[in-house]
């Protein structure tokens, strides 16, 4: 197991290095260089050169790249163009909210999606299965911002039972009240973000349950006279979950994209909304930093999922 974990972490480090290299060169090689975008067109050429020098943009690309890496290792992601504060500080204020939103969504999605998939795979072809399938396909096709707006419109404005945005009510802090307040603000964003991923979990689990139920060991369990429900939940479900957990890793990357949209719609103060604001302000250090931190979070979560998979299915380690 230790060997597998080491290997997996090394792979994660390589992935991260390639990701940041890619980001660096994409940002630098774009037709519009950051300096030109950053500066007012009315600035003089001398001023422009000075600014380029200040940001270290006058040096050769490769020198810039290595100083970028060096700074990154020190946790320095540069200074925000707009807020004139270190990018790292700004991101660290926002990241906990995004991680909270994503972790809760991930857990609820799995807790609801996997049993639903197992049961509808077991009841294959029944009315229940067909309804679950139809809803799942509709869920995959739904457009996140629209679902968000609709929920906001119904629960936030019309019924006015849930907050219309933000992550907590200013003024309330500490204690149970704060906890409940944060929870209340999470309800709509979590439902919105869940919609697409829930369908994926249901369909994947359903497919693998169908495969697993035709295995020999299931027949053995049945012929021992075991009750069908016990066969399903004790024997079949464990193996059926493996492909689902494997794809969970991939799903996290896509969920980050969904989080950008969800946070924007609900004015949720996370990294996703920060990206949206940075786009309209053309704040490149923020964009680049946000992407690097998000990619790092996704890579770490992927490593955790993979280790979890290896624990569930010892065969994986042998590959």
């Amino acid at each position, binding site marked *: 197991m230790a060997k597998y974990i080491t290997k997996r972490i090394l792979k994660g480090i390589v*992935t991260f290095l*390639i*990701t940041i290299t890619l*980001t660096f060169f*994409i*940002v630098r090689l*774009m*037709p*519009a260089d*950051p300096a030109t*975008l950053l500066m007012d067109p009315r600035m003089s050429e001398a001023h422009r050169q000075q600014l380029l020098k200040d940001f270290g943009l006058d040096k050769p690309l490769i020198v810039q790249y290595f100083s970028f890496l060096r700074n990154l290792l020190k946790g320095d992601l540069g200074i925000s163009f707009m807020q004139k504060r270190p990018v790292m500080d700004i991101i660290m204020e926002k990241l906990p909210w995004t991680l909270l939103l994503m972790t809760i969504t991930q857990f609820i999605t799995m807790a609801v999606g996997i049993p639903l998939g197992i049961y509808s795979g077991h009841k*294959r072809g029944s009315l229940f299965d067909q309804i679950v399938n139809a809803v799942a*396909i*509709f869920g*995959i*096709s*739904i*457009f*996140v*911002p*629209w679902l968000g*707006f609709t929920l*906001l*419109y119904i629960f936030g*404005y019309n019924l006015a039972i849930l907050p219309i945005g933000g992550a907590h009510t200013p003024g309330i802090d500490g204690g149970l009240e704060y906890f409940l307040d944060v929870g209340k603000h999470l309800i709509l964003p979590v439902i919105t973000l869940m919609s697409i991923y829930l369908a994926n979990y249901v369909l994947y689990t359903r497919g693998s349950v*169908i495969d697993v139920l035709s295995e020999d060991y299931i027949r053995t369990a049945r012929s021992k006279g075991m009750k069908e429900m016990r066969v399903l939940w004790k024997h079949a479900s464990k193996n059926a979950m493996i492909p689902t957990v494997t794809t969970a*890793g*991939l799903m996290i*990357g*896509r969920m*980050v*994209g*969904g989080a*950008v*949209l969800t946070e*924007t*719609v609900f004015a949720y103060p996370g990294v996703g909304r920060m*990206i*949206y604001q940075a*786009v*309209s302000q*053309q704040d*490149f250090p923020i*964009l*680049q930093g*946000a*992407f690097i931190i*998000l*990619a790092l979070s*996704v*890579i770490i979560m*992927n490593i955790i999922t993979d280790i979890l998979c290896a624990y569930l299915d010892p065969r994986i380690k042998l590959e």
Partner: protein
Amino acid sequence: MLELKKKSSFRKRWEKEIKAFLNHKIGMIGLFGVIFLVIVAILAPVIAEPVSGYGNYEDKLLKPSSEHLFGTDDMGLDLFSQVVWGTRSSIKVGIIAVILALAIGVPIGLISGYYGGIFDTIGMGITDIFLTIPMLPLMIIIAAIAESNSINMVAFIIGIFSWPSIARITKSSTLKVCGMQYIEAAKCLGIKTKSILLKHVLLNASTPVFINLTIVMASSIVTESSISFLGLGDPLTHSWGKILHNAYQSGAFGTAWWYSLFPSLAIIFFVISFNFLSMGVRDALNPRISRE
């Protein structure tokens, strides 16, 4: 004679598959949906007059009526026309994304599947990385720094990041095909690698790739809409995401339900149609799954 016989059995298989597809209700709904979208895209100039600039102030946020089927936006512009013209952009983005995904994904999949070894390690390593990193934020960054945000540019950005799933599918079906005896036979006959790859491997791997393409098509529209919704789309072209962006910006989504509803329904219709089509094709070509 042998040639003739081979052809007829090939045709028989095709006939069977087409028949299976025609009997697949969901697949047929998808096919009709896709045909409908293509017709709307082609006939856009006939169906609705293009709108641009500022409309009449009196026409601001009108409810759907016989004159304005989908109502009007906060500029007083007809939403029906914008949704119809948005279909055109969506189809265009989808086609460009699919072509790019094919052009990058298929060669990577073919080479890593056929040659294996170091090619496989590098090819699939890159694919894995692209599958892991969060794509939407990366595309947002590129769209934000790109000099022009024409619809072609957006489509290009989506396309160059849509290939990983195609590469994976191509690789796994290449592996499957390469294990067949006829590929070995072709190698023994001294047929050039290039022609084995193109003629035998590619032809046989084309079915799963095609099924995946419809999914790429559907997801490229969701991505385009997301990018446009965030205000990074082409300001001069009508797109469903752009209408939603305007609805969000104007703050009218709470009062004018038609403003955000119709473009959203269009996106859902587009995605469902292509997903249904892919289900139909998959089941028709792979009867084992359809029985399940």
